[in-house]
């Protein structure tokens, strides 16, 4: 399978701190891959660099054969990279449905004049976006909450809403930043099934940051371990678990 996403020798420093240092990764189309490592290892920085929030100091990022090293965040989304955030970022004062409609709007085909004059093209596209959004709410089981304020949802539902919103942009690559944070074992198991279903239904490739090792083990074919912005190990889950350096990084240096 061709690689959907490749990072080659990407570096990003903040002042003197090398958040990511000479980092490389290749993600085949259709894969579900994990990105793990201790706090501060640079995992979220990698997501931010891929989605254009940060600009890499060095190295190259390619997505579907195209150089996306210097894209703006909205361009990354338009090219087919969707993401969720470690600290959930919803449109809090808007309704649950509006949150997803806004993501669907990316593909709504009407112009400013259509909207200002309320022409048929606008009304049709608006109805379509709403219907599509309701479909995504159904997938995450929030169809009954469509009219509620997003910020008033319980934490678990907010996470689901964020994933629904990300999927509504129609991505080829989904970046999930700690989707299981704050979930209990039961909810984590549901999440694993849910992500498998997403891949089946939408043929989406997934890269996820996660601390719940059972989630990573159940979900990911391959995994990359980061420490201090560098790749510590990369391979199948089996290889990762047996790697002495990984064990040392997670459990403390002396025990290796």
């Amino acid at each position: 399978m061709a690689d959907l996403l490749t990072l080659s020798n990407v570096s990003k420093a903040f002042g003197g701190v090398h958040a990511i240092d000479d980092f490389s990764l290749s993600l085949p189309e259709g894969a579900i891959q994990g990105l793990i490592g201790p706090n501060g290892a640079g995992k979220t920085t990698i997501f931010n660099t891929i989605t254009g929030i940060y600009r890499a100091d060095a190295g190259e990022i390619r997505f579907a054969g195209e150089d996306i090293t210097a894209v703006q965040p909205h361009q990354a989304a338009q090219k087919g990279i969707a993401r969720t955030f470690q600290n959930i970022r919803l449109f809090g004062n808007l309704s649950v449905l509006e949150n997803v409609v806004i993501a669907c709007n990316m593909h709504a085909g009407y112009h400013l004049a259509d909207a200002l004059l309320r022409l048929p093209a606008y009304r049709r596209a608006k109805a379509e976006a709403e219907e599509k959004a309701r479909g995504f709410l159904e997938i995450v089981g929030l169809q009954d909450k469509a009219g509620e304020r997003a910020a008033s949802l319980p934490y678990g539902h907010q996470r689901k809403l964020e994933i629904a919103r990300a999927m509504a942009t129609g991505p080829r690559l989904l970046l999930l930043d700690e989707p299981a944070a704050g979930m209990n074992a039961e909810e984590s198991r549901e999440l694993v099934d849910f992500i498998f279903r997403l891949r089946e239904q939408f043929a989406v490739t997934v890269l996820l940051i996660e601390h719940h090792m059972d989630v990573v083990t159940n979900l990911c074919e391959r995994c990359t371990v980061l420490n201090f912005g560098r790749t510590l190990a990369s391979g199948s889950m089996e290889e990762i678990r047996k790697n002495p350096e990984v064990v040392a990084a997670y459990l403390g240096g002396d025990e290796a």
Partner: protein
Amino acid sequence: MLNAFQEGVVVVVCVNLIAVLGMSVLTGFTRLFSFGNAGFMSIGAYTAAICSVQLRLPFPLAVLCGAAMAGFIAFLLGSLTIRLRGDYFLISCLGFGECVRVLFNYTKGLTGGANGYSGIPYRTTAAVAFFCAVLAFVIAWNFIHSKYGQSLSAIRENEVAAAANGIDVVRCKKMSFVFSAIYAGWAGGLYAHYLRHITPALFNLGKSSELIITTVLGGLGSLTGSVLGTLVVQLLPEFFRGLAEYRMLFYGIAVVLVILVRPAGLYGYREFSITGAVRFVRRLGKGDGQDG
């Protein structure tokens, strides 16, 4: 039908409503504060007046030119300042508004300087003003409920998430800024053709503040709230004529109270709807006051 006083009240309310609707899109929906919108009103007023008097353009075309000129200047200014963070953007708008006022004071040949520009034909009747206000409301309503308006709300709620969902934040903010300037220019053009004589001092910082105060008072993120705010701010002084000198004092107190007691404004983050009102009245009728 209406006497001169009533006609004047209707025109002033409608003209201000148009400017406030523009402000509402910028401040209420995008959360960008501009203390320079009186400057755009001024540009609209003078452009329309000059088009009308010097170029002898018909009234609708003159007002259109005023609105377009305000929008064009906002586009240029926005290209420079829209990337600034909230408070810096606010200051840059404030500076711009004052620049316009001072500039029009000095360009005696074109604008008549501090003495003002006179001889503008009287064209903005109550009917014209009312028609324009309704049109402005409908267009703003359509804009806010389209993908463009929803993008603005998304930016207000969370800029990073908005960008991650494919929204070009800079472009949308600029669009919102230009939209508000066009509305201010539209209002200014109408106002000039009502007053027949305009001076730069009409569009000072106090006017910009009044527009913001009206928007905040009426409710952020609500167009119907802006209508309510405009009615309150423009009509109350008419009822309390004797206290008109103190109106800025009362506005100030009202804003402090609103921010303390009802931060979203009188009618924030929701729109007035007939069905909602009927439901509310029914609930009152049943007497179960358990509404959260």
